């Protein structure tokens, strides 16, 4: 059957049908993205934390903008080539379009990867506003040496027993599984994988149902054992509930037929007649119940150190003596020191400052009391760098040194801006960015040198710039060495990589760019179909193919259109 109006226009609309179709679709897309932009606006206008302004590296976003614009031009050229019946040119332009799509997605991948690898920690406790200082950086890699963590070089991160230093180390001695949650495989796998040779995990007591021993005491934990236990528990529970249902059915029949209650509305259950009958039921059926244990306990001997992702046992579910995993498995034992060890590429006190301002306290005074600046460095670099003229050893940690330099830089920046009647932004004031961290380190953390270098403005301060490929998608931890920190677990208020969990900015960033990325993939698939499977149609009905490409191109332009707004909003504002 011939599809009508795919080549020629309909008389009433003056358009071929697929064009009306794509525009209807695009109108719905405008509404969809409109809703998401609206969500962005809402989150930003009503954020109760300092919104991360201009937080993303501009260069990848800028290149992606150029790439999408270029592909918009080539897709329209591809359509024009088809109109002129130039198949070869069509192929070339379409290939370029597809390569642009691929490049765009590749760059997006690089950006996403940088976010997933970038750790943020919000410090908690102490000071008038509960600290709220934020450290950003890359987590180092460690392995367990007995109960202690030992750092391993980045290159060895894939070695056995090596894990990122943001994990919880828990000396596990007892395990209790909740049998009513039959989805333990993931965690049992994880626990068994980590069980060292010589340690065993054995059932503490016989598991007995209805007088029959289902599993004997001392049985070693495995997924099969656990699923057998789950099966027996669930069978027993099903039988129990069947008995209870039978009793309840009998009671309903009794109250209706023998007591003559004909109004079977829900109010029947409120009457004493019903309540007494049900109480008698419970007495009658309780001895018939199997009442299989809903939990089984295993003993770990000798106890070993379990390495847990903090996401496996959220804060509310853990204490120093026990952790509860997401599948309701309870692990008892002892939490060991589980610091987050990382190289810090940025210090951000803007949250602290915001909270201080709300309390009418000078932010700079509050920042001075932050744990970040006051803690004793565990890995003190021990160069004994003395403050000039004081003659005393320098006990400041690297972050305090960097902050002192930042204060010096800020002093100059404030003076400079004052000449034009301007003031530094909160970002200028409260955030030490990665390029600044490097600059201060380069000048040996000497505040005076920083002030002079900033004043000289001869480029001696920064070793990097906006278009420096070494900072393409963020701080480059392979090339530069950043100050090292060990943050004790009890100082960590909140920690996350730069994923939706960190804050609403990254939540909306990933939602919108993720959806946009899916549009790029979808568009590329359709355009690719025309390129690779269009030859036959080109030979039989070239005008139809041209119309198809026009429609696909309209979608592609729309994808470009969305990015034209996304780029400034997410990267530059």
């Amino acid at each position, binding site marked *: 059957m011939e599809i009508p109006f795919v080549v020629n226009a309909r008389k009433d609309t003056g358009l071929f049908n697929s064009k*009306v179709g794509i525009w209807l679709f*695009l109108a719905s897309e405008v*509404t969809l993205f409109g809703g998401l932009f609206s969500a962005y606006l*809402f989150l930003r206008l009503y954020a109760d934390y300092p919104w991360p*302004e201009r937080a993303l590296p501009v260069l990848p976003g800028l290149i992606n903008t150029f790439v999408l614009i270029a592909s918009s031009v080539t897709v329209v050229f591809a359509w024009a080539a088809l109109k002129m019946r130039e198949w070869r040119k069509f192929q070339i332009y379409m290939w370029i379009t597809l390569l642009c799509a691929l490049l765009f997605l590749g760059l997006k991948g690089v950006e996403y990867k940088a976010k997933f690898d970038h750790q943020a920690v919000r410090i908690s406790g102490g000071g008038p506003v509960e600290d709220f200082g934020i450290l950003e950086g890359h987590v180092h890699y460690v392995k367990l040496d007995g109960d202690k963590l030992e750092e391993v070089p980045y290159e060895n991160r894939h070695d056995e027993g090596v894990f990122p230093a943001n994990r919880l180390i828990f000396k596990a001695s007892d395990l209790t599984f909740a049998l009513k949650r039959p989805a333990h495989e993931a965690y049992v796998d994880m626990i068994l994988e980590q069980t060292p040779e010589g340690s065993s995990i054995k059932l503490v007591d016989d598991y007995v149902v209805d007088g029959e021993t289902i599993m004997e005491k001392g049985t070693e934990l495995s997924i099969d054992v656990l699923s057998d236990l789950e099966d027996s528990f669930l069978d027993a529970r099903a039988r129990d509930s069947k008995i209870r249902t039978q009793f309840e059915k009998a009671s309903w029949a009794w109250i209706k037929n023998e007591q003559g209650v004909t109004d079977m509305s829900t109010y029947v259950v409120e009457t004493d007649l019903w309540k007494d009958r049900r109480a008698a039921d419970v007495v009658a059926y309780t001895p018939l119940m199997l009442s299989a244990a809903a939990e089984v306990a295993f003993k770990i001997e000798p106890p070993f150190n379990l390495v847990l992702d903090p996401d496996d046992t959220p804060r509310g579910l853990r204490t120093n003596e026990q952790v509860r995993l997401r599948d309701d498995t309870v692990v008892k034992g002892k939490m060991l020191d589980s610091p987050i060890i990382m190289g810090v590429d940025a210090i951000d006190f803007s949250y602290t400052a915001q909270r201080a301002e*709300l309390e009418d306290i000078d932010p700079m005074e509050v920042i001075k009391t932050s744990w970040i600046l006051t803690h004793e460095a565990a890995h003190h670099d021990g160069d004994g760098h003395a403050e000039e003229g004081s003659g005393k050893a320098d006990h400041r940690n690297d972050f305090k040194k960097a902050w002192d330099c930042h204060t010096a830089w800020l002093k100059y920046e404030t003076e400079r801006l004052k000449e034009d009647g301007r003031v530094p932004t909160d970002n200028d004031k409260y955030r030490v960015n990665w390029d600044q961290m490097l600059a201060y380190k380069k000048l040996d953390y000497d505040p005076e040198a920083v002030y002079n270098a900033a004043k000289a403005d001869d480029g001696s301060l920064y070793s990097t710039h*906006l278009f420096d490929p070494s900072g393409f998608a963020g701080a480059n931890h392979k090339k530069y060495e950043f100050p090292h920190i060990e943050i004790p677990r009890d100082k960590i208020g909140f920690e996350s990589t730069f994923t939706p969990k960190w804050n609403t900015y990254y939540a909306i960033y990933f939602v919108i760019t993720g959806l946009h990325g899916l549009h790029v993939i979808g568009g590329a698939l359709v355009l690719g179909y025309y390129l690779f499977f269009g030859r036959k149609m080109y030979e039989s009905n070239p005008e139809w193919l041209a119309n198809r490409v026009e429609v696909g191109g309209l979608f592609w332009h729309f994808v*470009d259109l969305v990015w034209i707004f996304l*780029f400034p909003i997410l990267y*530059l504002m």
Partner: protein
Amino acid sequence: MADSPEEINKKKKLYMVIGGLLFVFTAITVMVATFEPLDFGEHGFDHVDAIIGLAIAAFKASLVMLIFMHLNHEKKLIYFIYGLGLVMAFFCMALIGWAKFDPIRFGNWEHADGFYNPEKPATKPDH
């Protein structure tokens, strides 16, 4: 719709020019946001930069819509359909206004920016 080869060839030149314009205005957006002598309004990002950035984006978007998507000469039906989408998108944006007119209020609201602090006394301390 441009259908004859001559017209399409003419169009191709226009597409190139528009593509070039889009490149240029993208560069301008970045310059305005990152190059200090071009930083309008307050130092750093503020509403002036937001307006400039969005205005450039809107201009670029209209170039794409008018030229690449051929909305400069299209049938009435298309304008109606697309217009409807734009109205809906605008409506979505306007919806967040409700939050402005209908804030959740409880406890001590000392500050106009709306932070709730149960610990805070209802009035500012005298210092």
